[in-house]
Every structure is written in C-alpha cells, then in structure tokens.
C-alpha cells in the first residue's frame, strides 16, 4: 500500500542512480549492488504520523552468504569455530549441520546459504569484510521489489508466489544461492530460500530493547494482530515480523542465514 508518489520516487531514483552510478560512487565491495533510495510503508508504523519510511541508497550482497564463504571466515578467525565459540554468542545449534568445526562434509553444499548462525556470528562475518548487516528497513526495501519492479506490493501474483514458498516442506535441502531469478535491483533469494538476520531484528513487534522480549505487545499475538497493521493481507510480511521477534541474538535455526550490506558512500 505504498503511496503512489513513494513508488514513483523509488523507481525514478533507482533508474537515475543506476544510470549515474559508475562515475560518482566508490566501487561496490565484491558481490554487492546498489539498492534504493526508496520509500515504503512498513507493516507496523512507528506512529500514526510515520506511516512511511525513507531509506537512503545502500549496498547489499546480491546473494546470501554461502557455507563455503562462512567456512573461509571460520578458518581465518577460529574464535567463530563451533567448538570454540562462546555460548553467549551462539547457541548449541551453531553450524551443527557441518561435518566438523572446520569442514563442511559431503552432506553440505558449498554454494548453499549458510544457516545455523547467530546474529553475533553474522555481524562478525560482515565486519571482517568491512561491511555490516542490513537494517530491517534496508532489507524490507530490497525485498519489496518483484522481478520487474522496485515495488511489487501491488502485484497480487508476485505476493501469491512469495506466500507459496512457505507451503513447501521445511525438510527440503536448501538449494544453491543465486539460482532463482534476481529481483528488480539484481538481488537474488530475498524470498523463497531462507530467513535472514537484520541488524535491528529485535525492533520487530516489540520495544527496541530486545531484553524486553517477554513483554511483547499482546495485541500483536492473537487475532487482533491484523487490526493496526498496514495490510492484514500481507501474510509473508507478518511471518517475517513474527520470525524476527521470536529471536535472540545468540539463537540459530536451520533456515536462518544472512547477507551483508554497506553504506553507499558518495565522495565529497
């Protein structure tokens, strides 16, 4: 339900920035591409006066981080090996699907997205690359795009396709990253493969301090949860918000991975 002006702005900016990107900007870190700037309407507005959110242009990994890439990181920084990581930073499920602390084994595809990683570990991986985790707003702006437009939120067929991903059995082995069609920004796998960490995951549903998790707003749990939302029909957005708010920073799950982001710096 993005206002028409907002949608136009997102598309117009995207076109102009793509056209003018090469001479004005630092080269993007390998594997990243420019997203935004854009405006979108989050599922839950921060206040009635803040129905829309503006996101500055930023750089985002085209694909989620793979097992092979994360293995390289763990080998360079053994503090993040599963047998050396501090329990405070990653729970018992951390990289459990790998054959060993420094080896994927035959059952794990190198080019599949890495999962079973905590927020702390994902953040450390990105920092090592001189990058960071995307904010929830950045991630949602990138995920708003369909394969053909910056804003797929009015495209009923696109929304239905996103929702159909959730009807697949959870036990399917994860496919390789980047094998599905990219979206408008040239980004792969924003939907249909894994959940992804965002920097401020704890801001979903609840107060900004994730230590207040136990006090999650009651009216967003039961049937009432549709009442104050942007669009009670956007089930996939509800699932993302619900998923993020079920997490703590040390948690890992079998379908939770990440990708990195960076600021799009413009030289003065």
């Amino acid at each position, binding site marked *: 339900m993005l206002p028409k002006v907002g949608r136009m702005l997102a598309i117009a900016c995207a076109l102009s920035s793509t056209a003018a990107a090469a001479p004005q900007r630092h080269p993007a870190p390998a594997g990243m591409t420019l997203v935004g700037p854009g405006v979108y309407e989050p599922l839950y507005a921060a206040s009635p006066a803040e129905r829309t959110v503006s996101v500055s242009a930023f750089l985002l990994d085209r694909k989620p981080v793979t097992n092979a890439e994360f293995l390289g990181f763990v080998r360079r920084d053994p503090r993040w090996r599963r047998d050396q990581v501090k329990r405070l930073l990653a729970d018992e499920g951390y990289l459990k699907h790998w054959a060993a602390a420094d080896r994927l084994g035959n059952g794990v595809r190198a080019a599949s997205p890495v999962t079973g990683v905590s927020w702390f570990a994902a953040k450390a991986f990105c920092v090592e690359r001189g990058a960071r985790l995307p904010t929830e707003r950045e991630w949602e702006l990138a995920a708003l795009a369909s394969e053909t437009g910056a804003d797929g939120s009015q495209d009923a067929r696109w929304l239905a396709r996103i929702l159909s991903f959730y009807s697949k059995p*959870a036990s399917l082995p994860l496919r390789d990253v980047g094998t599905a069609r990219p979206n408008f920004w040239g980004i792969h796998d924003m939907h249909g493969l894994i959940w992804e960490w965002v920097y401020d995951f704890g801001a979903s549903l609840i107060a900004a301090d994730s230590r207040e998790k136990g006090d999650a707003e009651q009216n967003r749990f039961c049937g009432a949860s549709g009442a104050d939302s942007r669009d009670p029909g956007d089930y996939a957005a509800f699932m993302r918000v619900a998923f993020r708010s079920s997490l703590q920073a040390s948690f890992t799950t079998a379908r939770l991975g990440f990708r990195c982001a960076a600021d799009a710096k413009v030289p003065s």
Partner: protein
Amino acid sequence: MTLAQTTCMSRHVINALKTSALVLSSITFACQDLPNRNAVRLHLAPPMTAAPADATSGVSDAPVLAKLTSPPNVPPATNRTKPARVVVNLTVKELVLPMADGTQYTYWTFGGTVPGSFIRVRQGDLVEFHLQNDATSTMPHNIDLHAVTGPGGGAAASFTAPGHASTFSFKALNAGLFVYHCATAPVPLHVANGMYGMILVEPPEGLAPVEREYYVMEGDFYTKGKYHDKGLQPFDMQKGIEARPTYVVFNGAEGSLLGDKALKANVGDTVRIFFGVGGPNLTSSFHVIGEIFDKVHFEGGSSFQDNVQTTLVPAGGSTIVEFKVQVPGDYPLVDHSLFRAFNQGAVGMLNVKGPEDKLIYSGKQQDLLAKQELSPKETALAEALVVGDLTTEQRIAAGRGLFASNCAACHQATGLGLPGTIPPLAGSDYLAKNDKERVLGVVLNGLTGQIKVNGNTFNSVMPPWNHLSNDDLANIMSYVFNSWGNSHGVVSPAEIAKVRPGGAI
C-alpha cells in the same frame, strides 16, 4: 497465585467432594470475580482440606508427567483426588502429510498430528507447560490455551523460535473441554495449517466412566488446487479470506476416521466424543447418523442437554457428546452442513459390533428398487479404470488436469516454460534426444544444474515428483509427450515403476 486464590481453590476442593460440577463452576466464577481478594482472605476460615500443604501453590510438589495422546485417542482419566503439579511436554513440528488420497499438504502441528496431542488435567492442577519448536521448523510458534486464565492464554510466554523451547505455568481454574491453538501472526494461517488441539480440565469429581472415549476435531483447509487435485497443495490465502474451503475434514485429513481407522465400539457401550472445531472459519453442525446424543455438554461447559440430534460447535469451541450404542452397524460422523460431508470430506465412521436387536431396529424388510444396469460402453470404461488399462487418449486427457495442478506453475500451460528460468517442454529437443528412461528419471529424481534446451542454457532446480503415483505420472508424461507438437509416444505406469528409485508406491 495469591493466598486468596489458594483459599478459593481449597474451598473448591472441599465443595467438589459434595457438589456437582455445575455448582462448582459457579463458585469458581464467584471467587474469581471478587473485586478485592485480600479483603476476602480476612473473612475466610483457614483452608480445611486434605489437599497438600504447599502454601504457595495449593498443589502437591511431586510433579506428574501428563500422558498425551494422538487423535482419535484420549488419555485415561487422571483419577486424582487432589490437584497436582502436571508437566506437559509438547513439540511443534511442520510436516508434509496426506490431506486426501494422492494429495499432500505442509501441516504445522502440535505433536505431529492434526489436531494436536490431547491433554488431560484436573481442575486445580498447576500445569507446567514446556513448548518445544522442532529444529526442522521454518516458523516461530506459540500456544494459546483457552483453559488458561491470563493475557493471551500463554501466547506471549510460549513464543518460540525454531530449535528452541519455552516454559510457562498456569493454574487450571475452570473445568471444561478447551481448544488450544497457535497464536503467532498471521494467526489464521497457523490455524489453517492445523495448529489446534484440545485440553480437558476434569472437574474434581472426574467424568463418569464410559467404555469408549474418542477425540475428534473438525477443521477447514484452503488449497490452491481443487478438492482431490493431486500433489503437494499450497495454501490459498484468498480462499481463506473468503471462507471458501477446499476441504472440511475431521482430524486433519479426509478419511482419517474411515476404513481401518474408523472409531470402534461394541453394542451396549457408552461412547463419549470430545469434539472440537479448530476452524479457522467454519462452525460445525455435528451429527452422528443413526444415533441420538443421550447427553451433550454443549460448548464444552459444565451444563448438559439430553436427547440431542445435532449440536452446533463454534470455531475455537468444543462439545462433549455421550451416547449408548444399541444396534450393530456403521454410524457416520458428519457435519450436517451436508455439502461439507459429501463434497469436502467431513465424514468419519463409528463401527459398532455385537448382536442385533430387531426390536430397536428391524433392518430393511423389503427391497423395492430394481437393479441398475450399466450400458456396455459404461461397463467397458469402468473395467478399464479398475484394471488401470487406459487408452492413450484417456491417459492424455487425464494427464492434462494433473499437468495443470502439478507442472503448469513453472512449465506453463502452454508448455513454453519461462525464458531464462524454466526450460520449455513444447517442441523441446531435450525430450527428443534423451531416451525415455532418462526423461522419466528427471521427473522422479528432480534435476539440478546446467542444461541446454533448444539452444538456450538453463540453470534452475526441478524438485523430484516422486510423491505422485505411477499412474498419475504416466498420465502426465503421456500428456507432455503428445502435446504442443511433441510426439514421443505413450508412457505406462510400469515404465514409471521401472525408473522409480526404491520401487513402486
């Protein structure tokens, strides 16, 4: 738990020994409703009860592990004379299970079944609830038990990420049969995927013993394909919003109470059915054909009505029906909104065995209908269907519908695929130059990696379709091999069976 509540509970226990559940529940209400519990405490005598001396909880310290059962079974009565601390361990699992013959659905379940495990406790019990979300789950989940007095019914306290577990406790203040369900956003989707079950809170005097107790819940399901379309069916949100279910079934799937799985009883037994409606949308007109409910605890509460034919059960509500079976035979359980029973799956069966009683029911005394005869053509067609020996034309015709529901989402109804992503089947040189076994192998085993079709390179993933039967796959492939200009001959179920890994299904 305040001391005032404890005092209230203790009085219940005493009263329970000499009063009916009806009176008891009204006292419970009065106690809960008192505006100032501390004030009450001052005017009440100290608890005089044989109940345990734990001053803070009013229950015994030794925990009891709740025995949970899968539908249609019900755990035995608690047979306890006093409240206890009861531990419930329930694990949420997301599973692909059959919804009908040849049709699968990705269910989200409490304990691996739809409805979820049956929980049985006693009024006054302190229930320590451990909700685990299986590591293979995609979604976070929680539980809202209608038996809980407290905000959200436990939903916020039990909100759990995949691979994690949560614990919370509640006091079972009110007796009755209560629905529980997942209350994670989007709630209707979690319920539509099967996340509901029931918890029985027995009144202190328990329920009268009967020969048979069963657990049945009705639910409405919304699939992209039509009723009986084959394959793994995704959820259809629009149908859900419009309350146009594809399936309305008992215990999560068509046929879950039919054939070998029918409910059983003997002549002379009293049957008690704990019946609930998970929804998410429909209410049920619950009826057992050929029986009259002797007793209905309507809405799962403490009062009952005698001699009921059909009882209305709300979504997120329940009923306890009891009836004595006196005549052997088959007694269908239905939702008496009859299109649901006839066209959407809402039928179960109770088989009653034992001696006939012609005074109660005579059976048919005269048959006045003439025998129906089939035309020779109808007979031939019926025989062909029985032996599975279809003509090429019949296979292609049957394959058209199966292709539409299983393959067309990617390969398109035109067989042209999607440029750059999904290879075409129409006029495909891949089909022409590879032998039949290899092509059938791709359908059964899936295909990952780069292939070239009609000069274009594709690098996508085709999942395996081995959940379809040999017959369905033979029909689909016969259709593909003889459509859009293709001409590669017919495929028989035997050819599929030969290629299928691990043999036939």
